[in-house]
């Protein structure tokens, strides 16, 4: 075990935190398991790619653009689709989002073709050389933005009226409605925030990975793990979950071998679930069985 892999693991954790946070929020608040989350990350990456290609916009500057686009898409999906069947329970909405996912991926394939694309800013390969370890700038920036997004989300949820309404709805939908919360709108706003976070994740990941219409699929599995490790619907949970997963994968690749990376991270997930099912920083009343 060397210092470099530890640093790599922590930085990868920052990437994973961005992937998991929107998914966890939507699941925790609305009880909708959004299988289209991976596809929304993909579309966010395409927004960044086209902004980079067409307008010459730096990938980090196009984050607000990707967030806006995916936030609007998320709002529409929840308001005009998922809200219509949301009372049937978690599995019907799951299948509905699976259908939405198929539509989104195929549309991306249709519009953008299956070609591999990449965003390659000039500073892409550069890193901070600290002697024993090298810290790539891009990954460091992603880690920082992940922290920032988490912090802003935390402020929004605890300091604003809408944020409080979202948390109240997560605790008890019917009680929230009784005290005057428009839960249909709150669900749509929550999904919009989840979509915006997916868009941000896509914009960030476009600088690291090749962009294809199916790039989001493996990330969906990771989002599940991250959300459950940290605790559903908690703002800091995804950061913790992402860090644990990132470290487990990197350290596992070094000590056991890269072939068993997934087995290790998912094995870890199963152990965490059995030992502490509410997640590491999860709280009672959040995302209980409904």
């Amino acid at each position, binding site marked *: 075990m060397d210092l470099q892999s530890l640093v790599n693991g922590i930085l990868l954790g920052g990437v994973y935190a961005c992937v998991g946070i929107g998914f966890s929020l939507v699941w925790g608040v609305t009880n909708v398991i959004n299988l289209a989350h991976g596809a929304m990350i993909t579309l966010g990456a395409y927004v960044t790619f086209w902004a980079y290609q067409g307008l010459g916009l730096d990938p980090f500057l196009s984050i607000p653009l990707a967030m806006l686009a995916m936030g609007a898409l998320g709002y529409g999906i929840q308001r005009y689709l998922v809200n219509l069947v949301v009372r049937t329970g978690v599995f*019907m909405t799951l299948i509905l989002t699976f*259908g939405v996912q198929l*539509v989104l991926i*195929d549309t991306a394939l249709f519009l953008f073709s299956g070609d591999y694309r990449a965003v390659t800013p000039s500073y892409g390969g550069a890193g901070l050389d600290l002697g024993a370890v090298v810290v790539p700038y891009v990954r460091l920036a992603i880690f920082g933005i992940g922290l920032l997004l988490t912090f802003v989300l935390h402020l929004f949820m605890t300091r604003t009226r809408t944020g409080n309404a979202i948390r109240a709805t997560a605790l008890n939908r019917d009680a929230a409605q009784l005290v005057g919360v428009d839960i249909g709108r709150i669900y749509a706003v929550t999904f919009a925030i989840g979509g915006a976070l997916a868009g941000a994740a896509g914009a960030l990941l476009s600088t690291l990975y090749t962009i294809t219409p199916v790039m989001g699929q493996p990330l969906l599995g990771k989002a599940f793990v991250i959300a459950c490790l940290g605790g559903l619907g908690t703002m800091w949970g995804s950061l913790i979950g992402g860090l644990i997963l990132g470290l487990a994968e990197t350290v596992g690749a070094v000590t056991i071998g890269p072939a068993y990376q*997934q087995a290790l991270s998912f094995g870890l997930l*199963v152990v965490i679930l059995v030992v502490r*099912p509410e997640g590491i920083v999860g709280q009672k009343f959040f995302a209980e069985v409904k």
Partner: protein
Amino acid sequence: MTRPPGRRAALTGAAAGALVVAALALPWLASGYWVRVLSGVFMFGALAQSLNVIVGFTGYADFGNVVFFGLGAYTTAALMTKAGWAFGPSWVLGGCLAAAAAGLLGLPLLRLRGHYFAIATIGVLEAVREITSNVAFFGGGMGITLPVFAGPPEVFYRTIYYLLLVVLVAFTGLAWWLARSRFGYALRAIKADEEAAAVMGVHTTRYKVLAWALSALCTGLVGGIYAYWLTYIEPPFVFDILISVKYWIMMLLGGAGTVLGPLAGAIILESLSVAIWGQFLRGHMLVLGLVISLVILFMPTGFMDLVRLRFSPAAVVDNLRRNRI
């Protein structure tokens, strides 16, 4: 409009009998294409019924159910190639091994409720898939090629067809038994309210583990047939979560916890996707996604519920009104 119960049962029996006879005769009348399409329908119907035992009746969301499919497929393949066994015993042992795996995993995992159980099953699936890909005995990432059936291909495909038909009818019979028996009643009590069931004297752990093992046995048996049918398997094929997504959708479309629902769901979705695949070479996923979304919007409680309501438009509208927010 109510019919006397005796007449209704006789009608249902006659209809089911006619369907079975038609299914038995089909390979001798239709082309190889239809035999293949129907074999697919039977396979997914059988898988949806297997899933129905743990999800529909017991209420435990087994997202990673396809792990038992893979275990059944791999055990069958390994016994046939490495030990030189015939298909029959390898197949049965494959199913038993899947059941044993579920029994062992069930003791810790079935203590989890709701989402947590669901996610844990995905974790098990991913871990098992990767371990299988790396173990040399299972051919690693190279996969396994099974011994080829000795005989003409039509006979082989007909054998697979009948084998799948038999398991489908058997598993539907199992669902019918679960809907009536004491065992099935205990499972439904656990689904409705686990604490209440325990208070009423249901040994919940034992029943849950048995239900999961039964579901895994069925899934594993289908996996074994699939391995023999394909004659070549590799981990990404048989441990593919998308396979379970497909039969999950079928079970829910038809109606979870009903006897005929999973079967109806398999027929509906498989015919739709075959038709769409044929019609739209490009964009078939888009059309399938749209169709799935529309079906969920208009029958959010499943097809069998619509049958129960006799397809009344008022009931559909009422459903839509009740489930929105």
